[in-house]
């Protein structure tokens, strides 16, 4: 296996992008990534497209994107891992480069959810569990699946709806200063969140990420090319991948996502750190906050803190910039938006920019001490999980950051 670096990233504006087709939206991200790496389409030997689809018109999105972006006739495939589709695309491109099958590969995540009416989208997402046993007869919705976790978590650890609203307020705070975010310019208050209507009790509208169109892209290259292309390669040091059960009823408890825990375990093992107090190794993280409860469970599944203590991190503001471990300084899925297939690649873009210290405005640039970052991307309700670890170091394990 060869080491693999990210040398170019691009990110489309997230939101209701009814001004673009699938190809045009992907191009916004692809063009920016090519410019960032100062590469041309002919340099890309292989590209992979993450697109969950169903709600959008194109049935063969990878080829449509390849044609529009001038990447044809290079080989491609479309990958799907529900809401972790973008990370699956990144992983696929990573494998292509690590294995030696390609020296330069591109991962593109793109999703157009506004091509269908909202009721159709709600129906599609509700079916993203186990269709026959959980949707056909019991009509679960996506917030409903996570609400089952939120109820159990609140009951076990005494967390309140107000605690979870603090996640929404934090992520809107950062989303409001991220020009690429769906809710750019929109801050919210605890009160607004608490007063928003229930969509699946105890989950309220403001606990939930929106329906989003978006695209993001990353160019991955082999170790011998990385330094020729850029002075600041960001190395993909580890990827952990795991699955949970399709049937929620087959899970033993509802206070954490086992798939995310397992994926983290793998990812940490490969870089030689213990799955415990992991906040101290990373300067910044992007976690999968499709709902506020998901962010809190992520803190624990990732081992930032122990089970049940995640809620203390948000209560004490420790996941803001300057805290123990800054999380979702791009606004997260909650405020940046959650274009299913693009979310994971968007996380890769953000982690790369954070480590390069090139985030604008500086208010959402994390302080970089160890040069390590992490993204946590969950598909479905813990059906899939991808943990990707990024570093400025090509070798070795992360050091411990100074306690502030």
């Amino acid at each position: 296996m060869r080491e693999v670096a990210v040398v170019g990233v691009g990110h489309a504006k997230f939101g209701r992008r009814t001004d673009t087709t699938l190809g045009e939206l992907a191009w916004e991200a692809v063009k920016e990534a090519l410019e960032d790496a100062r590469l041309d389409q002919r340099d890309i030997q292989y590209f992979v497209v993450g697109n969950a689809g169903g709600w959008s018109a194109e049935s063969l999105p990878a080829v449509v994107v390849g044609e529009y972006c001038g990447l044809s006739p290079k080989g491609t495939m479309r990958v799907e891992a529900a809401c972790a589709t973008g990370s699956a695309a990144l992983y696929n491109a990573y494998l292509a480069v690590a294995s030696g099958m390609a020296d330069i590969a591109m991962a593109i995540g793109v999703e157009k959810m506004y091509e269908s009416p909202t009721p159709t989208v709600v129906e599609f997402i509700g079916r993203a569990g186990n269709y026959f046993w959980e949707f056909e007869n019991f009509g679960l919705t996506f917030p409903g699946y996570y609400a089952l976790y939120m109820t159990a978590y609140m009951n076990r650890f005494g967390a309140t709806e107000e605690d979870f609203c603090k996640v929404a307020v934090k992520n809107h705070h950062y989303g409001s200063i991220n020009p690429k975010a769906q809710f750019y310019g929109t801050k919210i208050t605890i009160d607004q969140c608490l007063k928003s209507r229930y969509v699946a009790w105890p989950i309220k509208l403001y606990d939930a990420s929106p329906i989003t169109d978006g695209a993001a892209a990353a160019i991955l290259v082999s170790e011998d090319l990385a330094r020729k292309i850029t002075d600041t390669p960001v190395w993909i040091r580890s990827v952990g991948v795991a699955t949970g059960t399709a049937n929620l009823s087959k899970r033993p408890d509802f206070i954490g996502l086992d798939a995310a825990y397992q994926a983290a375990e793998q990812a940490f093992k490969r870089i030689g750190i213990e799955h415990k107090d992991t906040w101290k190794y990373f300067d910044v993280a992007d976690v999968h906050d499709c709902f506020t409860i998901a962010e809190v469970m992520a803190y624990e599944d990732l081992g930032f803190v122990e089970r049940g203590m995640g809620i203390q991190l948000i209560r004490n503001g420790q996941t803001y910039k300057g805290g123990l471990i800054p999380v979702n300084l791009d606004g997260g899925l909650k405020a940046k938006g959650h274009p299913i297939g693009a979310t994971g690649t968007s996380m890769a873009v953000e982690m790369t920019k954070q480590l390069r210290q090139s985030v604008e405005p500086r208010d959402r640039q994390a302080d970089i001490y160890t040069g390590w970052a992490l993204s946590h991307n969950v598909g479905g309700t813990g059906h899939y999980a991808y943990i990707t670890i990024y570093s400025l170091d090509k070798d070795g394990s992360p050091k411990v950051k100074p306690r502030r």
Partner: protein
Amino acid sequence: MVMSLEARYEEFWRQSIKQLNEVVKATGLPIAPDEKGQYSLWYDVREMRLRFSISVERIKRFFEGLREGKVYTTRCKRCGRYYFPPQADCPYCKASDMDWVEVSGEGELLTYTIINTKPLTYSHYPDYVVAIARMREGFNVLAWLRVDDSRKVRVGMKVKLQVVKREPEGYLTYEFIPAEQ
């Protein structure tokens, strides 16, 4: 009875098709502004309806059970594992020798939610409680919990699984009721 849902569903699409036809008639193209009146959209003139047909051949006994008013699970004859939802094969033993066992029906609530914003195909039901309970046998079941007041639902409460007719469609399924009122 099934008509009530179909009528709603048809109405939703009839409205948008009607609007589309008017736009085409007036402008010669199916192009109109998006919901926010901001950008031009081509509104698809081709419709695709999705309704799947899913095999239940190997777990027919489960559905026969519902007709008898019983909820069945399968249990592997070799390793004793329960499977709910029932399945025809035990991947761990690589075997397909399964016993059909009636579920005790006694469970304890692990968690629940109330679906307030419903999928279109569920829009004809009042808000419903979806719960997961651990059954006496050790496996979990996910189903609706039938209660008159959802504020009385508590994690840890005892529930009973029963076969019911889902109205207005009139087909057999299963749901929980509180064990003690």
